[in-house]
C-alpha cells in the first residue's frame, strides 16, 4: 500500500475511532448537546474521507457498487498492511 493511501486510511481510522468514542458516550448521555455536536462534525468529516478513499482506492465495505472485476476482494486485507508507528 503506498504512503498516500496509508495516510488517508490512517486519517479515516482516526475519525472512525473518534466516532466510536462519541457513540459510546452518547449511548449513556443521549441528551448531551456538546457530544452530539462533536459526533456530527466527526461523522461529516468521516464520510467525506471515506468517499474520497473509496473513489480512489476501492470499497471498504461489500455494499458499494463495483466495476469489473469485483474490487472488494482486493488486497491488502487489513491484517496485511504494514503500518508505521507514530
Amino acid at each position: 500500500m503506498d504512503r498516500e493511501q496509508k495516510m488517508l486510511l490512517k486519517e479515516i481510522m482516526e475519525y472512525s475511532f473518534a466516532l466510536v468514542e462519541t457513540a459510546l458516550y452518547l449511548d449513556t448521555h443521549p441528551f448531551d448537546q456538546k457530544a452530539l455536536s462533536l459526533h456530527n462534525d466527526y461523522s461529516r468529516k468521516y464520510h467525506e474521507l471515506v468517499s474520497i478513499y473509496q473513489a480512489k482506492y476501492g470499497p471498504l465495505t461489500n455494499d458499494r457498487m463495483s466495476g469489473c472485476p469485483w474490487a472488494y476482494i482486493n488486497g491488502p486485507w487489513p491484517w496485511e498492511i504494514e503500518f508505521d508507528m507514530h
Partner: protein
Amino acid sequence: MWIYEKKLQYPVKVYTTNPTLAQMIIEQFGGADGELSAGIRYLTQRWTMPTNQVKALLTDIGTEELAHWEIIGTIVWKLVKDAPIDQIKGTPFEAHYVNHGKSPYPHDASGVPWTAAFINSKGDPIADLHENMAAEQKARATYEWLINISDDPGVIDALRFLREREVVHFQRFGEALRIVQEEMDKKKYY
C-alpha cells in the same frame, strides 16, 4: 446485523518475529478475559436489558470487542508469519503450530480452548453489568501483564491502546449500571 469495514480499528505495527510472545498474546484471542469473550458476553446479554441506552451500549461495545479480537489475531499472525520452523520448535507456540499451523486459533496462552463457560449472562441486568465491569478490569489487568512480558515496541503500543479501551468501557458500564438502577427504582413506585 453486522457490517464489516476493511480496516483495523488500530494501526498495528509488529517489529519482530517471536512465536513465544505470540502464544502469550493469544490469551486475549481465546482466553477467559479476552476480546472474544468480551464480544460474545456483551452481545449475548442484549436481549434482557431494560433500557434503550443499555441495549445500545452492549451492542456498540460488543461490536468494538470483535474489532479488538481482530487486532489480537493480527498481532499473533504478524509475530509468527515469517518464523522458520527452527524458531518455532522448543517454544510454547510449537504445540499450537502442530494443531493449527501459523493460524490464530481461539484458545488461551495455555492452550485451553475458548468456551461459553468463560462468559456469564444471567438475564439480570444488575448481575450482568457487574459481570461486565469485572470483565473489563480483568482484561485491563491481563493487558498490563502482557505489556510487562512484551519486548516488541509495536506490540506494546497496540497493547496499551487495547488496555485504555478497557478503562473507557468500565466507565461506560458503570454509567449503564446507574441508568439501570434508576430505571428499576422508578418501577418500584408507580
